[in-house]
Every structure is written in C-alpha cells, then in structure tokens.
C-alpha cells in the first residue's frame, strides 16, 4: 500500500513544531513513530498534506523519575517505557500494559505519547495511565498547559489538543504508598492485537478496607475511560466477593460500548464485568494490607 503525497518538515524544537502546525492549519499533522498514523494514511482515514516529524527533535526520548513522579518525554518509545527500571518498580500496571502493545518491532519505533494522541479507545497504556492519574503537558502558541488524562480523551480519535498544540511529556504522580496494581486485557489472540476490552486497577488498602481505588477501561466506550461508579463501589469496603461483584457490575454501567466487527456491545459489557472483577482481585492481592 502506498502513501499519498505530502510535504515533510523536520523541526528542531517543539516550538518549531508548533510554528509549523500554525503555518499549516488545514493539512498539518504531527508524526512521531507513525505506527498508527502511517496506517491510517494508507487507508485514507486521514489525509494530511504536511507531516511535521517530531523524531527530528533531539532530547525528547526520556523516561525519568524525580521527586514529583515519572516524566515520559514525547518521543519515548513503548520499549523505553517498558524497559525503564522506574516503571517496572514503581508503576507495574504501566509496564504490564506496555508489554501488551503489539510486538517489539512496533514498540521499538512507536511512542507512548503518540499512542495516546491518536485517541483510540483500544489502547493498552491509556487505562493504565488513567488509573495512575497521569497528566499531559502541552505546548502551544499561547504557552504551556497541563491536562489530566481523563479530560484529554474527548471521543473516538478526538483529544483535547487544540490547533498548533504539541504534547511535550506525560507526568505520572508517585503512586500511593502500599498500593496494588493490575492490568488485564482480553484479546482475540495472544499477539498483535489491540485489546477488545481491558481494565487497569490501582488500589490502596488500610486495615482490610479499600481507602483509594482508581479503575479505568479500554475498549468499553468511544474512548478510554475511568470507571467512577466501580471506584465508588469499593471505597471504605472490605473486598469480599459481593463487593467486588458490585464494583464489576457498576463498571458495566460506567461502560458504553459499541458493537463492531470485533465484538458486540453486549459481549464487551460482559467482558468489562469479568476483567474488572479479576483485575480488582489481582490488585488487592498485590496491595500491602
């Protein structure tokens, strides 16, 4: 499959990338690893007239930890995130989700920020980062701003990014002390598949009761979402089977899946219940009591 013709700009800084977007208000599009958008261009889902290649900007492929938490640069690949010791040690839910992304050849070139900026509901890392309360740092013509990830996702292939804005990094706060995390995904086959449905859970337990719960879903609405009803169902409770079942049932209410060739809405809703139940149990096992 061939790509249509387009112009190509290789900026040397994020400011230059913003300026290039401003200069191409109609057909300008940012390119990072291109593992989604090159495919979308082949199928003419999008037809940009000018690609602005962020991979030409040095110094943005970092994954680093400081006192405020984790910082993932705009050009950090899935592989870099997955292999980060800080991610494996402090944010295992993100490592587990990144491990599910496609295959190593895609993870080696594709970026985590690019994955999120596509805004697809079937993203493995999106629910993990929602459950970790990640924020997007954005640079635009009028300065910088920070948006919580749950406000960044607006709809199918639709994010909060405005004209001439570029995501510079993802910020992930330090996880609560003693929390347990889990990510479970349902795919049609073991490899090379986006999740049909997946659930990410981050729990804090104190004296046998859940004092903090964050649950997020992929493939369960037109974008990745927090399952707020399921979170409320766990707060203050000991996680016996009835409570977990109530949370799973609430997650099914939080979900608003559509039917497509991969699965019906009813099937996806059933999967939400199963995967939220199992992910809560796994996260609870891993939490310090």
């Amino acid at each position, binding site marked *: *499959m061939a790509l249509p013709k387009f112009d*190509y700009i290789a900026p040397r800084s994020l400011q230059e990338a913003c300026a290039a977007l401003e200069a191409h208000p109609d057909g300008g599009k940012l390119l990072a690893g291109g593992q989604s958008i090159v495919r979308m261009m082949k199928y003419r889902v999008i037809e940009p007239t000018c690609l602005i290649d962020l991979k030409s900007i040095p110094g943005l492929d970092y994954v680093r930890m400081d006192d405020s938490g984790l910082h993932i640069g705009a050009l950090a690949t899935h592989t870099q995130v997955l292999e980060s010791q800080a991610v494996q040690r402090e944010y295992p839910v993100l490592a587990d989700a990144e491990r599910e992304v496609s295959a190593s*050849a895609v993870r080696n070139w594709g970026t985590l920020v690019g994955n999120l900026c596509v805004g697809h509901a079937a993203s493995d890392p999106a629910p993990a980062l929602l459950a970790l309360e990640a924020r997007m740092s954005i640079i635009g013509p009028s300065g910088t701003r920070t948006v919580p990830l749950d406000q960044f996702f607006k709809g199918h292939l639709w994010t909060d990014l405005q004209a001439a804005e570029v995501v510079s990094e993802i910020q992930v706060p330090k996880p609560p002390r003693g929390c347990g995390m889990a990510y479970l995904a349902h795919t049609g086959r073991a*490899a090379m598949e986006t999740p049909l449905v997946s659930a990410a859970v981050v729990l804090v337990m104190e004296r046998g009761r859940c004092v903090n719960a964050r649950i997020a879903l992929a493939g369960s609405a037109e974008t990745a979402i927090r399952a707020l009803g399921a979170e409320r169902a766990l707060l203050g409770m000991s996680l016996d089977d009835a409570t977990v079942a109530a949370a799973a049932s609430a997650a099914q209410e939080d979900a608003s899946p559509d039917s497509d060739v991969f699965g019906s809405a009813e099937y996806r809703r059933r999967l939400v219940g199963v995967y939220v139940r199992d992910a809560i149990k796994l996260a609870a096992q891993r939490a310090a009591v």
Partner: protein
Amino acid sequence: MSRNLEFELNGKACRRDVEPNTLLKDMLRLDLGMTGTKETCGEGICGACTVLVNGMPVRSCLVLAMQVGNHSVETIEGIGNAQNLHPLQQAFLEHGAFQCGWCTPGMIMTAKALLAANPDPSEAEIRDAIRGNLCRCTGYVKIVEAIQAAAATARGSNPLAQSQ
C-alpha cells in the same frame, strides 16, 4: 519534492534522494533492489518486512524512509550470503524452518536482534520475541528449534557440532 537522505545500510554509508511519502521497505526493495525484505500485510501486523534500525527490529512498511536519516539499517542481505551463511540462516536451512520462505527474512532479523540481547533465550523468550512475525506454513516448532540451534552455535555449545 525529493529530499537527500544519508544513513548506514548494512555497514556502508548510503545516500539516496527520496520522496517524503517513500516507505522504508519501498526504498529498500524498489530503489535499492534489496528484495529480501518482504511485504505482506502492509499495516504492521505480519512482520515480514522487519528490518533492524540501530540494531532494533522495526516494521519497514510503517516507517518513512526519511526517518532513518543518520541511523543504521540492517537487512537480510547484510547478514550473510550463499557462500557465507549467517548462523541463523544455516540453522533455518538445517532445521527446515520454512516452507514458502516469505516470513523468513523478517523472522531471521527479529531472531538476530533477540540473540544480540539474549544469547541464551528460553523457548518462551524465543516465542515472545517472534510473536509479531506470522508464519502460515510451519507451525513455528522448527523456527523455534532453528533459533535455539543458532543460539547454541553462537555460544559454541551446539550439541550437533560437538558430537561431530
């Protein structure tokens, strides 16, 4: 408008004029005549077009040629030839690790990157590494055996080689 592109191809400096919409696999196959790299699905799923960039497997059907500027690219043509086979190529032959052969270049490039990072992979690690390379002929058993044999040869501990 075509752009000048400089990169390293199979260990040698390479300079080409390419259009921005040229994919890496098309530059390799159509412009440079290196048809060892195959394309099947064209959307990053099958792995037939896998080449190494800076030693890492990538999908050459989803990478713009422009994006390999100043990087090193390695293809199946660069790792061995009929007179001097790479240990992986030799092992694929000895173990009958292909039938139609279409997935083989991508499979071998993926395996080469695996063995560079992990000289003694378990079967599970091999299967995980090649999970993005689809073979519709072999059922993977002989491919896994070939990669294990090549790894043993590279470590100097191939039981077949020792017994001879």
